[in-house]
């Protein structure tokens, strides 16, 4: 049997995923967690636990308990609105993840006389001191993007937002991004980006955000750790030599909440070859396959044994930050999206409100409008 792997990144084109899943062109798909929720709700992919628990299909050496429990939890969902991630069916096998940590430009912090912030209040207070001119270079305190896409939430927004005590939906699945706490945080955050953040942030993709930090002109960058290889590469990055890592700062009530992101392999519901599909998924996530993948650049392997594998440790040591990442993964990281089938659309609409605030709209008004729109999008997706 020949295997066709969709190597293409399909830019925000759900239709193509729909087609791939419906047309049986491919029998598995690699997807972000929030897309898995969408696909599982629409019935495009199928639960995997029946394959996992079938001894005729799954090798005893597979040792599923070796996967980080937090990752497995984020791929598990009952499909019932309002129920949290971590229960119900297993929709994907994790293959790659990233957690958010804080990167900072040591040189710039020293020159401004700023200590590494432990809390968000300290971080906000330090921003004005770091923005200005140092050695004839224009510098900025905060490297944060604000592109109108859910990807913005995933690229520096979730950790401070969650640490501030905010979330996207309450238990009744009503959107609460217009709660007083959220309004307070969004106002502060957007103002910080406007005053101390990159020019053109509203059209900045995560890659341009990364490029900006690599220019060496930015102090703080709350970032997904899987791109350490780029910021520590002296060829591509001017901060490679004076880079520091820290845990993401705590919120006002000393909560520290980071965000974890996981990619998983899922199976098409209508596949005619579920057995071979599962064997392929299983093979891709075997310990020694993941070790090989880690050595080739998948620096955040989903199995604990692979993360601790001496070869992998040696290969990833040069990127630094292993202890910070491990601590974050064990204590602070969790997926911050509430499971629901419209998470990407929710993210898009939320960031649209943040952009409106950036342009001077009243925060309460912009976020209330967004919350109502998100409720509407959710309603029309789930109700018939």
């Amino acid at each position: 049997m020949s295997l066709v792997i969709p190597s293409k990144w399909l830019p925000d084109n759900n239709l193509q995923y729909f087609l791939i899943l419906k047309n049986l062109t491919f029998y598995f798909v690699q997807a972000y967690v929030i897309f898995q929720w969408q696909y599982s709700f629409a019935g495009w992919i199928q639960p995997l636990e029946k394959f996992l628990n079938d001894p005729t299909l799954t090798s005893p050496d597979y040792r599923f308990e070796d996967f980080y429990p937090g990752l497995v939890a984020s791929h598990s969902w009952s499909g019932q609105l309002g129920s949290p991630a971590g229960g119900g069916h297993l929709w994907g096998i994790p293959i790659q993840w990233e957690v958010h940590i804080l990167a900072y430009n040591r040189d710039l912090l020293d020159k401004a006389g700023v200590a590494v912030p432990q809390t968000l209040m300290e971080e906000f207070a330090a921003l004005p001191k770091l923005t200005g001119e140092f050695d004839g270079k224009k510098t900025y305190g905060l490297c944060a993007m604000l592109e109108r896409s859910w990807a913005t939430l995933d690229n520096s927004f979730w950790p401070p937002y969650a640490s501030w005590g905010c979330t996207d939906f309450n238990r009744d699945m009503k959107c609460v991004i217009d709660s007083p706490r959220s309004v307070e945080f969004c106002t502060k955050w957007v103002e910080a980006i406007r005053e101390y953040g990159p020019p053109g942030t509203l059209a900045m993709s995560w890659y341009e955000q990364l490029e900006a930090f690599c220019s060496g002109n930015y102090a703080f960058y709350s970032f997904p750790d899987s791109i350490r290889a780029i910021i520590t590469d002296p060829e591509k990055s001017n901060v490679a030599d004076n880079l520091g890592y820290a845990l993401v700062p705590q919120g006002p009530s000393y909560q520290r909440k980071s965000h974890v992101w996981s990619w998983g392999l899922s199976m098409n519901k209508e596949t005619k070859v579920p057995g071979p599909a599962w064997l392929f998924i299983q093979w891709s996530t075997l310990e020694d396959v993941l070790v090989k993948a880690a050595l080739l650049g998948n620096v955040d392997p989903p199995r604990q044994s692979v993360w601790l594998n001496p070869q992998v440790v040696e290969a990833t040591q040069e990127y630094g930050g292993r202890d910070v990442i491990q601590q974050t993964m064990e204590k602070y990281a969790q997926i911050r999206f509430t499971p629901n089938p419209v998470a990407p659309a929710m993210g898009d609409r939320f960031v649209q409100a943040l952009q409106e605030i950036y342009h001077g709209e009243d925060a309460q008004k912009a976020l209330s409008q967004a919350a109502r729109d998100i409720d509407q999008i959710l309603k029309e997706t789930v109700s018939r």
Partner: protein
Amino acid sequence: MHSKGHTLAKVGIGVALVAFFAWVLFPLFWIFLFSIKSTADIVSYPPKFIFSPTLKSYTAILLGKTTGLFSVAPDFPHWFKNSLILSGGALGLTCLLGIFAAYALAKYKIPGRENISFTFATICFLPILAVMLPLFSIYHKLKLFDTYLGLILAYQLITLPLFVLLLRGYIMEVPQSFIEAAHLDGATEWQVISKVVLPIILPGLMAAGLLSFIYAWNNFALALVLAGGSTEPVPLGMLSYIGFTEIQRGQMSAAIILCVVPAIVFAAFSQKYIVRGFSLGLLKG
């Protein structure tokens, strides 16, 4: 006095024209510079005007590149081939059907002829997604998604009405007496069209064909919805330089330049037809 004012006016016209053309050409010049800069030179700010040029971006998109253990096949030739097949195929089918349709709508007494012609015109102006979104579901059922045949058929939405509309204007100009004379000589309908009408309207045929081809070549929304990895044409493929892992500005610029070069060649010999096509075809139609 008079001649001084005249000279001033001439200088003014000259300056205005130079400014306008500088504005038209500057973006192309700048992107050309990008295409021969290294990545570091592209991102450096303020922009570098003196740098050592490299052809790396061109070799990467034409011949592929190797990163680490992986070699990445070049995409650009694939997209270019797809664009040629799709636009060429679309034009071929359009000519095949369009010449007859244009002839019938220009020369026969068909009930509701003007209305049919107007319908063709309005199809030209449909918001393209209004057709593409439903067509997507239909193609999904017929398994035409991401196939050359499916896309060439769908491209008719763009090429066929335009072609018929333009050509009809030219055919209406052909004197009825020529056609009647040919009929008296015993020519069949096909002979009338191929031996009498087509030679007369050849410039019009060129114009309509070229415009249809350009519209097909430039189309994006249609491919965005209906094309997948195996049929994607240049405009769609170009977006993937804004990849998941990086934005390859150098390669994107090189690809843009490679699009512009045929465009210039094309422009050089087609501009006459393009202008005539639009003005004559539509005014007479």
